[in-house]
C-alpha cells in the first residue's frame, strides 16, 4: 500500500461505493459530502499522474524567487561572511540566519545557505585563492573530516575551525559574548537601539548560561544586561578554555601535517572508522 497511486485508487473506489449506497438510500446530504471527497481524490490522482513521480511525501514548494528587500544588494555569501565574523565561531546555518536577521538587513534563508556551501567548494577547486575568502567547513578533531552542518571562513586559523568534544560549548559561549557585545554596541551607537530580533537572540543564549539573566527581572528580553551575559559566559569559558584549546591545537598541528590545502578547508575525505582507529592509536 505504499504506492500513493494505489492508495488513491483504493480511496476512489471505496468512495464510489459509498456514494452508490448513500444515493440508493436517498441520503443526498451524505452523498454530496462523499462526492466532494471523490472529486478531491480524483484531482489528487490526476496531479500524481501528471507529475509522473512517486510523491510519497507531499510535494515541497520552495518559495523560489523571494523579492529582494532593501539592503539585500550584497550577495548571500557576503551576508554569511558578515554574520560569521560577528559570531567568531563555526556555526550552523540556522544560527547564521538568526544572527543575520538580528543585526543586518536583507534576506537570507537556511536553504540558500546549503547550496552556497557547495558553490564555494566548487569555486575554490576551479581556481584556488581567486577570492579573498571562502566559506568552508569545520573539521572533526579526530578524523579531520568535515563536521555536519557547521560553516566557517577560510581566513580563520585552523584551530578556530577544529571541533573537539568541548568546542560546541566553547563556541556557544564565545558566540554569546560576541552577540552581547554587538547588542551593547547598537545600544550605544544607534538611535533605536538593538532590534527586537537581536534582543531575542541574546536572550536565547543568555537563558542557557548560568547567571546570565538578572535575578529579579521578569521574563522579558528588555531586561537583559549585555555586560552580565558577557561576564557569565566568560566565567564558564574559563572552565573549558584550556582543555578545549589543547585539543584544537593538537588537531590543527596534525591537520597541517597530513592534509593538503584544499583538505584543510573542506575536510579530509570521508573514510569511516578504519582511519579513525589509526588516528587514535
Amino acid at each position: 500500500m505504499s504506492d500513493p497511486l494505489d492508495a488513491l485508487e483504493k480511496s476512489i473506489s471505496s468512495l464510489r461505493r459509498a456514494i452508490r449506497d448513500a444515493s440508493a438510500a436517498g441520503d443526498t446530504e451524505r452523498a454530496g459530502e462523499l462526492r466532494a471527497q471523490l472529486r478531491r481524490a480524483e484531482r489528487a490522482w490526476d496531479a500524481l499522474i501528471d507529475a509522473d513521480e512517486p510523491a510519497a511525501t507531499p510535494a515541497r514548494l520552495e518559495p523560489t524567487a523571494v523579492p529582494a528587500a532593501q539592503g539585500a544588494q550584497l550577495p548571500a555569501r557576503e551576508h554569511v561572511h558578515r554574520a560569521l565574523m560577528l559570531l567568531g565561531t563555526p556555526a550552523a546555518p540556522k544560527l547564521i540566519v538568526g544572527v543575520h536577521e538580528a543585526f543586518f538587513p536583507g534576506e537570507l534563508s537556511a536553504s540558500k545557505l546549503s547550496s552556497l556551501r557547495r558553490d564555494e567548494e566548487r569555486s575554490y577547486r576551479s581556481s584556488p585563492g581567486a577570492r579573498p575568502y571562502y566559506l568552508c567547513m569545520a573539521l572533526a578533531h579526530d578524523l579531520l573530516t568535515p563536521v555536519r552542518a557547521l560553516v566557517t571562513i577560510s581566513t580563520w586559523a585552523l584551530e578556530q575551525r577544529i571541533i573537539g568534544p568541548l568546542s560546541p560549548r566553547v563556541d556557544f559561549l564565545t558566540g554569546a559574548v560576541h552577540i552581547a557585545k554587538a547588542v551593547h554596541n547598537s545600544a550605544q551607537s544607534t538611535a533605536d537601539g538593538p532590534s527586537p530580533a537581536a534582543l531575542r537572540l541574546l536572550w536565547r543564549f543568555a537563558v542557557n548560561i548560568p547567571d546570565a539573566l538578572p535575578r529579579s527581572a521578569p521574563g522579558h528580553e528588555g531586561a537583559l544586561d549585555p555586560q552580565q551575559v558577557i561576564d557569565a559566559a566568560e566565567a564558564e569559558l574559563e572552565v573549558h578554555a584550556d582543555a578545549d584549546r589543547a585539543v584544537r591545537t593538537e588537531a590543527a598541528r596534525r591537520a597541517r601535517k597530513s592534509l593538503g590545502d584544499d583538505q584543510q578547508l573542506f575536510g579530509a575525505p570521508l573514510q569511516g572508522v578504519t582511519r579513525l582507529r589509526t588516528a587514535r592509536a
Partner: protein
Amino acid sequence: MSMLSALAHVQATESMQAVPLTAFRHRRLSSRPLVIIPLVMAGEAGAPLAAMVGSARRKGTLLVVAQPRNRDQRFAFAASLGRTVIDYIDSFRQGRRGGGGHSRYPDTPQILVPNHGGIKALADLGRMCRFRSTSGPHAVPDVVPEFGMWLTFLVDRAEQAGTSMLLPVTGILAEHWATGQSTLEDQNLASLMAWIAPPAGLSVEQAMADAENPDVCPPAGPATSPEFDNRDLAPAIKRFDTARTLGDLRALAAAESDLRELIAGQIQPTWRMTWEAIALLRSVPEAPRTIKRFERDCAAFTSYSDYRDSGGLPQRKRDTAIGAAQRLGWLERALAEFESDMAFDDPFVLADRRSAGEAFAGTVVEAEPSRTVTTASNRRVPRPRVTIRTQDPVRLAADTKLLSPSMPSGHKAVIVSVLPDGDATLVTVEVTGGMGRARVPARGSVPVPDQRIAYLPDPGWRPAPQFPGSDRTPWTHSATAGETGADPAAPEDAAAEEWGNED
C-alpha cells in the same frame, strides 16, 4: 461493568445491532445546545486547526487556522471561537430567579463535542487562553482569557458525573446503548452510530467498515487522519505559507479558500453525525431525576458567572494537595449519587445493579408491620421489619442503608440479615423512615406480604456541594496575581512567537 451490561454487549454482537442499556436518558439535553467540533494539528501541543461551531444543525460556522503554528493566527482563532462561545454563554445569563444569595439563572449553556478527545482539545485551548494578557507586547483581545476561564470551568465541571454543561456525544450514546464492539471502538462516533443507527441502506457491518475508513468517514477529531494530513493538508498549508511569504494576495486568498474547503470536507460529516446523534438522544425520554442534577448545574453556572462578573482570577494551573483531595471527594460522591439516581429512575439500570448484587428485588414473604423500638431518648417509634425473597445474587451486608424506587419517596430501610434459602435469598430489612410522624406507620409506607419490591443502597444524604470543581474556590486556592502563567525565567510569548515563524 455488570454481568447484565456485559450480556447486553454479547446480545448486540449476536443480533448485529445495538441493545438499549437504559429506559431513560439520564442526561439533560438543552433545547439549544452549542455543538463544537474541534480539530487540532497532529504533533503540536494545543495547536488548533479548525472548529465548526453552532447551536443549530443548519447554522454551523467553520473557523480555520491557515497556519496552526503561527501564534497570531492561533489567537485570532481563539478570539473568534471565543466570541461565539461567550455570546452563547451570555445568552443564558438572564432571567435570574429567586431572591438574595440564592437567586439563580433558570437555564445553563450546554456544549456538546463529538468525543472525549474534543473535551481534551477544549481543555488545552482553555489552558492556553486563560492566562493570556490583554495588554503589553503580546496582547490578545479581552475575550481570549475570558473564553479560556469559561472553558476551564466547563471542562472541570464535566469531570463530575451527572453534569451536563459539557458532554461528549459518544459518551452519552455509550451510556444508553451497548454495541458489539469494545469501549475503544465506541469512542469513534461513526463506529458507534453504525451500531445504533447505521446510515440508511447500509448494514451494520458495512457501516462499521466505513466508519474506520477515513476516505468515507473522516475521523471526528480532534486529530485529522494522517492520510489527509499528508496528501491534502500539508501541501495546502505550504501553498498558503508560500503565498504569504511572497505577499501574493490573490494566491493567498485562493490558498485560504482551498484550505477552508478541504477542512470543511473533513468536518462536515462529523457535524452532521453529531446532530443526528443528538436527535436520536432526544427521542429517549428524560429520566425524572435529571432535573435535580440540572438544578445543581444552574447553581454552579450562576455562581461561576457571578465570580466572573466580580473579576475573578483564572483557575490555578494545578490544584494544591488539599484542593486535589477535596475535589476527588466531590467527584466520588457525585458519581455514587448519579449511579443511585439512575438506578432509582430506571428499571434497566436497577436490573444492572441487581445482576451485580448491588441491589435486589423480590416478593415480601413476611412482615412485622407493628414492630416498635424505644430510642435512646425513651421514645417509642415504629420499626417494622419485612423479609423479601429474591433470586438476585445479593452482595449487600447487614446495616446497609437502603432506598426503594417501589415505595413512596422518603422510604428508608436498613438491612438486618441476608440468608440463603435454597436457590434464593431471604433479606430482612427494617423500615426506618418515610412512615410519617405518628406512632403507627402511615398507610402504604410499609411493604405488605406478596408485594413486589426493589431496594438499592442509599448513597447517603449530604448537602449539595456549593461550589464543586475549581469554579469558585477560595483565594488560597486560586492563581495569584504574580503567577500569570508565564515562567518567570522564560517568556512563553517569545518562545511561542519564535515557534510560530519557524518551519
